[in-house]
């Protein structure tokens, strides 16, 4: 007698091509953002997510059916997908936007991912992604996606254990003051925290043989229109400037001088 069919896991890993962490960024001359003519690479938190997905497969072996990576970005984002494929993902989806289009916002991304998940004939059991992108530091997409899908979520994960037979995942989260352990029913959205690097993994080098194999793995191209999603930003950035340069302070010799300086600065005192 066959036991109740254990559904094989389908893992989706959304990734983002962001400004490389080592780049010294500058505000662009129009003051609308940063100069984007710099080196880009995969968001480090997403690297950890890809690595974690590959490690889950190493632990569960055949129980993981597929690891699919997806990115929403300009044509150059294809390179980031190739890196993820070289790290061990099976296939990729590239939701292409124009080079000149503004960067999508978390809500737009979450809606696009929802549409994508609903398109997957075999369904998605685990979505694992970085907790935030290092260019906008928004940290919202995972949570919004969970809300839209009505799925369980475990954010800032530092340890993940998936049990496909019981259809649950045990996840340890980083919270202020310590660690929290959650047991979530699948399907689940997990966002990975940096500390995972220590507890579990250091993202592997994409070795040259894997990079070469990755060239043959399938990349599906889609547009936002095909997903039925509008990625127009809802927020308008008015101005971006660098922080004011720190002006040197001065030392005062005694309390009287301090009072004089405070009065000069326009600070008045009031008797309590």
């Amino acid at each position, binding site marked *: 007698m066959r036991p109740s069919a254990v559904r094989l896991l389908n893992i989706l890993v959304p990734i983002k091509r962001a400004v490389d962490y*080592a*780049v*010294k960024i*500058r505000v662009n001359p129009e003051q609308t953002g940063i100069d984007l003519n710099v080196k880009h690479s995969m968001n480090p938190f997403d690297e950890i997510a890809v690595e974690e997905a590959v490690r889950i497969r190493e632990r569960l072996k055949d129980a993981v059916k597929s690891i699919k990576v997806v990115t929403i970005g300009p044509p150059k984002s294809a390179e980031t997908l190739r890196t993820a494929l070289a790290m061990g993902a099976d296939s990729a989806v590239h939701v292409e936007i124009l080079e000149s289009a503004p960067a999508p916002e978390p809500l737009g991304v979450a809606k696009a991912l929802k549409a994508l998940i609903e398109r997957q004939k075999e369904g998605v059991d685990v979505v694992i992604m970085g907790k935030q992108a290092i260019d906008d530091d928004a940290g919202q997409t995972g949570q919004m996606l969970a809300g839209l899908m009505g799925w369980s979520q475990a954010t800032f994960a530092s340890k993940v254990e998936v049990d496909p037979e019981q259809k649950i995942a045990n996840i340890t989260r980083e919270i202020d003051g310590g660690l929290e352990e959650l047991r979530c029913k699948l399907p689940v959205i997990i966002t990975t925290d940096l500390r995972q*690097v*220590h507890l579990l993994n*250091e993202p592997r080098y994409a*070795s*040259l043989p894997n990079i070469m194999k990755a060239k043959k793995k399938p990349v599906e191209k889609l547009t936002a229109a095909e997903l039925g999603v509008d990625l127009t930003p809802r927020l308008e950035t008015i101005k971006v400037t660098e922080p004011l340069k720190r002006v040197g302070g001065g030392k005062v010799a005694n309390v009287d001088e301090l009072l004089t300086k405070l009065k000069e600065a326009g600070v008045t005192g009031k008797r309590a």
Partner: protein
Amino acid sequence: MLTRTVFRPRILNFNRLLHSSSRINRQLFDPSTVERVSEDVDVCIVGAGPAGLSTAIRLKQLEQKLGKEFRVVVLEKGAEVGSHILSGAVIEPRALDELLPDWALRDDHPLTQSATSSHMRFLTKSLSIPIPHPPQMSNQGNYIVSLSRFAAWLGNIAEEMGVEVYPGFAGAGVVYADDGSVAGVRTNEVGLDRLGCMKESFEPGMEFRAKVTLIAEGAHGSIAKELIQNFDLRRNSDPQTYGIGLKEVWRVDPTQYRPGEVVHTMGWPLDFRTYGGGWVYHMADGLVSLGLVIGLDYANPYLSPYKEFQRMKHHPYFAQLLSGNSTRVAYGGRSLNEGGLQSVPQLYFPGGALVGCSAGFVNIAKIKGTHNAMKSGMLAAEAAAAVLSQDSSSGPADMSKYETALKNSWVWSDLNEVRNLRESFNTPLGIWGGIMYSGIDSLLLKGRTPWTFRNRARLTDAQHTQPAYRFRPINYPPPQPPLSTDLLTSLTLTGTNHAEEQPVHLRVRKDGIEDTTLRKLHVQRNVSEYAGLLQRACPAGVYEYIEDETAADGWNGHKLVINSQNCIHCKLCDIKVPTQDITWTVPEGGGGPKYSEYLLLIVSAGMVHLILSLSSHYLTVYDSAV
């Protein structure tokens, strides 16, 4: 959803100790027993510079012509194509016109700034005197480019044509067939720690077995060095001689910007015995490339190429150029060939050949080598295609037709015309003799002389170095920002970095021997006889001779420290160390400098970045900040 909250104190380093591969358990890497993934290709090219990429592009063009398919792989140790290449540069488009006749129609080509004027100036401490320049230095029809961007552009074209380009993977060594011929190359190992033990992330390099292997590593390439030695390719040619080029790119004040202007200088700050000169090229977009080349056959071990360059900028001519609203945006350094025709080795060996600066085709009068490098690549491609079209089972590839073709091409006549100029500087008259002879030869005789000056004594640059007791230390002025800065500040502009836990890629190794005795001898001779030359010469601050009474591999209270993370891959040490016991090997691919057109945008946050890149130190800091 069940929730169980557990409060655990945050022990910062605890988990790292538990879970990262413990050092005690790591095994030493043994190259003789490792199993490598092997891939068969038709042509494997080491180096994605103009020579390597021209070879690849030409091969793909020939595919259509010959009706055959060639699998072409190009390996590049830089993180991206263009990261490790550095030059002035003014290029003669002669080879590009032959390779891609319609290059001007492509909308992304980087040859946007023509050279509009050429000047030569002789500098004294305070004056800059215009002097006539040899006709070879007239730059009519040439372009001022960033060679880094040029290489990146060629790289895109190559990929579009189906060439497999793999940046971030270094050609680390040669794969030999049983008969001793070259059967391909292998890439570097990744994931070895400082002691050579295998970390958890260890992956052995892979092998590319190729019918034809072409080495395009640039000046003084590491694989080229091995092949030249193994196959005795220099038996009929003079040793190669080199210069070190130090470069900065500045965004100058608009009043000082004269787009297309090409200036070369001689004289100050170098003395009459030292070959070299400066340059100023006004590139596109308000940027000016400037620098100093010093012949590495300099005799005085107290000479510091970096400091000479910094003090040159205080000369009134440069000080004015860099005055006003100006910012430095880039710094870098690289060796270049100066040996010319006499130093070109035999170009082919069983199984492959040398192209570009790995062979050495720089025209020292024009101070240009890109056109010859590209043409050599194209000719090598044609010879390789012919070899591949023949019956494949007839032994290792014979690339001798490439050498014949090159000798019959304009590359040879280009180099022949100027073959005596550099050597004419090697007399007791120093640069005066050189200028006099070169003036006559280049203006009137144009190389049509029956004589060819040879380096019969086979003196290398290292051998030209004289002991320190014959000189007095040079009193360089301290750096005066913004015009001149200290070395480490400049170094941050190269964007250089190497992943931390990896073997030091600069080996104290001579004739295959590498041990403590050799290291002690190195320290002894370099400190006592040559006043620690490498410490002064390296443009990246890699080498230090410091006082340490307790060092096991030191001498007389001194030891050698190699800060290999700073390395910018210029190869000066391998060339110039008087004891000739530094062997430059490839580090893990993807490290090294990150030269690009706009270097400032790739600046890493200084030395701190070196620590940030991989290690948990950053993360522990991050944790405590949260």
